[in-house]
């Protein structure tokens, strides 16, 4: 310890902490610096943050005060996984490659081969399984509501109680075209004449070739996948609902009621 020379009578400046020397007592002293807290305590000594109130949902703000607020039930994670394709580019690319290889292999198979029958049945089973797995809780409407709405639309058009709109005229046009196709196909099948080919025979002329069978099988498979996975709640509808008026993606005044109608 180093020896310090000081005049006689002077006191040592090394006073105990918290106790001022005798010659400085009664004078102003700067406030003591805050005592640093030990680091090992971490945030235990910190002041607890003031809890913030959760922001009001947009749909709640749009509702009038007297309207009951029902929170939106988000679809299961599987539904959100299926359709945000830009995030799943790698998975989609692999699936497309595997599907293309499968369609090319299917094009090489004969119509009566066992491998062809097994692969078609396996494809149907896979698509139905995908539809059941991905569609749970993701349907836009209940089946009963859907059937009732369809029946009411047909009955209203038949009774002509409502003025025909453009949508009704378009639906009527589709009914005419599809009915003509199905009706003529059934007539040709019933007549069984060579001059009256059925629709199956026309497609059979395409599937006789390997490339035609492969391309048609690819189109059939793609359409089946769309029927199984497409147009579900909380998926692709967010983009199109703004135009169609379905509030699944964009909250609106009727969003809570519309969500109740879905499964």
């Amino acid at each position, binding site marked *: 310890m180093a020896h310090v020379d000081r005049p006689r009578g002077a006191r040592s400046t090394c006073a105990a902490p918290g106790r001022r020397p005798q010659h400085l007592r009664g004078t102003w002293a700067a406030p003591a610096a805050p005592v640093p807290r030990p680091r090992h305590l971490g945030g235990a000594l910190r002041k607890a943050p003031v809890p913030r109130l959760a922001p009001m949902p947009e749909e709640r703000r749009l509702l009038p005060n007297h309207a009951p607020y029902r929170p939106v039930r988000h679809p299961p994670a599987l539904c959100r996984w299926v359709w945000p394709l830009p995030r799943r580019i790698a998975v989609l690319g692999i699936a497309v490659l595997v599907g293309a290889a499968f369609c090319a292999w299917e094009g090489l198979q004969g119509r009566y081969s066992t491998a062809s029958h097994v692969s078609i049945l396996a494809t149907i089973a896979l*698509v139905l399984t995908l539809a059941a797995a991905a569609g749970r809780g993701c349907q836009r409407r209940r089946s009963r509501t859907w059937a009732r709405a369809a029946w009411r639309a047909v009955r209203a058009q038949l009774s002509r109680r409502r003025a025909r709109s453009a949508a009704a005229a*378009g639906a009527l046009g589709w009914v005419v075209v599809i009915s003509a196709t199905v009706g*003529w196909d059934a007539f040709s099948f019933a007549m069984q004449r060579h001059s009256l080919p*059925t629709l*199956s025979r026309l497609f059979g002329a395409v599937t006789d070739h390997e490339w035609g069978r492969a391309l048609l099988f690819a189109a059939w498979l793609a359409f089946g996948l769309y029927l199984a996975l497409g147009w579900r709640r909380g998926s692709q509808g967010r983009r199109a609902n703004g135009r169609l008026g379905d509030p699944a993606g964009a909250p609106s005044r009727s969003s809570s009621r519309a969500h109740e109608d879905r*499964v």
Partner: protein
Amino acid sequence: MTVGAIVWTAIGAAWLAWLVVTRSVRPLPGIESVVRAFLGSWLGRIVALAAWAEAGWHLFGQRP
């Protein structure tokens, strides 16, 4: 050209014309609206999938 070929050509032309019309005229529902009308519920989706499965089996597994 047989009668069947003529009729099928006319039906195909009607399909093509109606597709173009529904695509051009905005209020008219297109083919995607017709398909989505079936996909709105489980019942319609099952009906569409059953028709799809039957068509595929008939087209690729049976003699057309």
